[in-house]
């Protein structure tokens, strides 16, 4: 198994060099998020009225914003908040969604109806709009952005887990496990959930990009994160007003960071999917 996995990993990278690139970007992003504040040349919050709106140069690689803050430093430091929000939101919806979906799919009956109805109701909203409504209702904070993003992601994991469990519930190996003296809890825990985890993880990786976009979109319209906190969405939003005077660097670099992050998670998700599902290798 280990050898086979290694072969799959090598295959995924060799076949799709982009996956390797994505992994490199991922490691870079993680590094930024973990030790970013120690790496950056300037204090991301320090204003400097002598250096306002300085174009990219050797001292300020990404230029400075309207308060003279170093954009490179802000972009690097923002990785922690942006990735943190997305990771927390995805983790929340992955755990809750898998749990609810798996139980609903295995048990069926009224539990399935109730859980299904819950997911349907969430999905009956345009999701970004629902997230706006939730943040507006719960209050304008980072925690609530995470909660809103988690809620709108919930049906994806829930329905996915439900469908995967449902397919497998009647499968012979599950029936065999029941013949072998396993109760419902044991079957879910030892036989079903481990088998649906690989596709769930792919789903999570593909979903990370979307979660990042959502959180950044909410901050872009002024929800959640408040200035002067460094966050990509709000930085783009702040830079947007300088389009008409040509200070492009104010929004391009934070925007590019967003694109890079989303791109990286999407590619990793694709690579992961190739790794666990060889049939998709076309």
């Amino acid at each position, binding site marked *: *198994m280990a050898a*086979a996995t290694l072969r799959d990993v090598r295959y995924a990278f060799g076949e799709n060099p982009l996956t390797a690139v994505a992994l490199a970007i991922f490691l870079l992003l993680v590094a930024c998020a973990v030790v970013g504040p120690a790496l950056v040349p300037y204090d991301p919050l320090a204003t400097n009225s002598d250096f306002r709106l300085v174009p990219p140069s050797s001292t300020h690689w990404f230029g400075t914003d309207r308060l003279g803050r170093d954009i490179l430093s802000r972009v690097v430091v923002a990785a922690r908040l942006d990735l943190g929000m997305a990771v927390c939101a995805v983790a929340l919806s992955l755990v809750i969604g898998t749990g609810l979906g798996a139980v609903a799919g295995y048990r069926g009956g009224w539990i399935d109806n109730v859980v299904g109805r819950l997911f349907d109701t969430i999905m009956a909203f345009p999701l970004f709009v629902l997230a706006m409504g939730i943040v507006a209702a719960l209050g304008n904070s980072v925690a609530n952005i995470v909660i809103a993003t988690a809620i709108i992601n919930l049906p994806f994991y829930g329905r996915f887990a439900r469908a995967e469990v449902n397919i497998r519930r009647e*499968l*012979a*190996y599950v*029936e*065999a*496990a*029941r*013949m*072998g*003296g*396993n*109760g419902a809890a044991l079957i879910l825990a030892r*036989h079903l959930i*481990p*088998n649906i985890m690989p596709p769930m993880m792919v789903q999570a990786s593909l979903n990370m990009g979307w979660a990042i976009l959502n959180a950044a979109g909410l901050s872009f319209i002024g929800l959640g994160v408040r200035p002067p906190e460094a966050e990509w969405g709000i930085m783009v939003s702040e830079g947007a007003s300088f389009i008409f005077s040509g200070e492009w660097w104010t929004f391009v670099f934070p925007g590019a960071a967003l694109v890079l992050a989303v791109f990286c998670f999407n590619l990793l998700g694709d690579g992961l999917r190739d790794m666990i599902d060889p049939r998709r290798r076309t």
Partner: protein
Amino acid sequence: MTTLLEATGLKRFYKVGSGRKRGMLHALDGVDLAIGTGESVGLVGESGCGKSTLARVLARLVEPTAGSLRFKGEDIAAIPLARFITSPLRARIQMVFQDPTESLNPHFTVGDAIADPIRRLRGAADKNDLDRRVRAALAMVGLPDNLIGRYPHQLSGGQKARVGIARAVAVEPELLILDEPTSALDVSVQAVVLKLLADLRARLGMSYVFVSHDLDVVRLLCERVVVMYLGEVIETAPTEALFEGPAHPYTRALLAAIPDPHRRGQHPPRLDGSPRSPIDPDPGVCQFYGRCPRGQPVCAQSRPPLRPVGAGHLAACHFAGHPA
């Protein structure tokens, strides 16, 4: 021969459709069946006849809607499922599944797959004891020890089928239910597995319920055959007697449809059309009526019960025993 498992009046209905189309699908519609100790019974019929459902009800994978299930005289259908699952009785009835690939958890090694039911149902003194029993089960089905750490995807079809059998016999069942165990296998592998099954039964003295659509296979492996049609047993007889003198017109058609090189060029009458709907069937009409070459008005007025037509030979047809 003593009776090992006796099913009486087994019914299993499923709700289907919604609104005005709602109905009850009669997957099992009152089945009586007794399996003797050490006996090997073949269960045959077309897809949708309820043979798989019956196998699952006998194994208590599916709960019957009505009816009793007596194992050595004890009504096991009355034991709540949650208790039955972990009771010693669970080990007494085991099952081998159709698709060898599907029946193995892809994340379990061969050793884990066989050890799991032993641990749950038999209990092992320690790791060594467990390991010893797993190896014994492997040896029983003729698999080498070195497969113990392999995953299903590293095995051939025949090896997977044997692991499935080893898993079932490892807990020393008295009744083994085999649900089309060779239908997914190639001829050459099928022959090996069939011989193994015959050999295991001879050595361990288990009873078999062998579900199959392949009458040739049933003929080789079973002492008695039970023919099902639309949720009912319509004929049962010792294998020899059934193949020599089928009493029910459906059985006759079924036997006539087995490909046979010796029938080259002959045109036996074929069973055409499709079965009646299994949803809310009329209890006063023979289920085979409409498709039956011998149908008479009486067949639409009463459903024929199973009745003796020979030694150990029962058939559910108004005209069974009467020459055509």
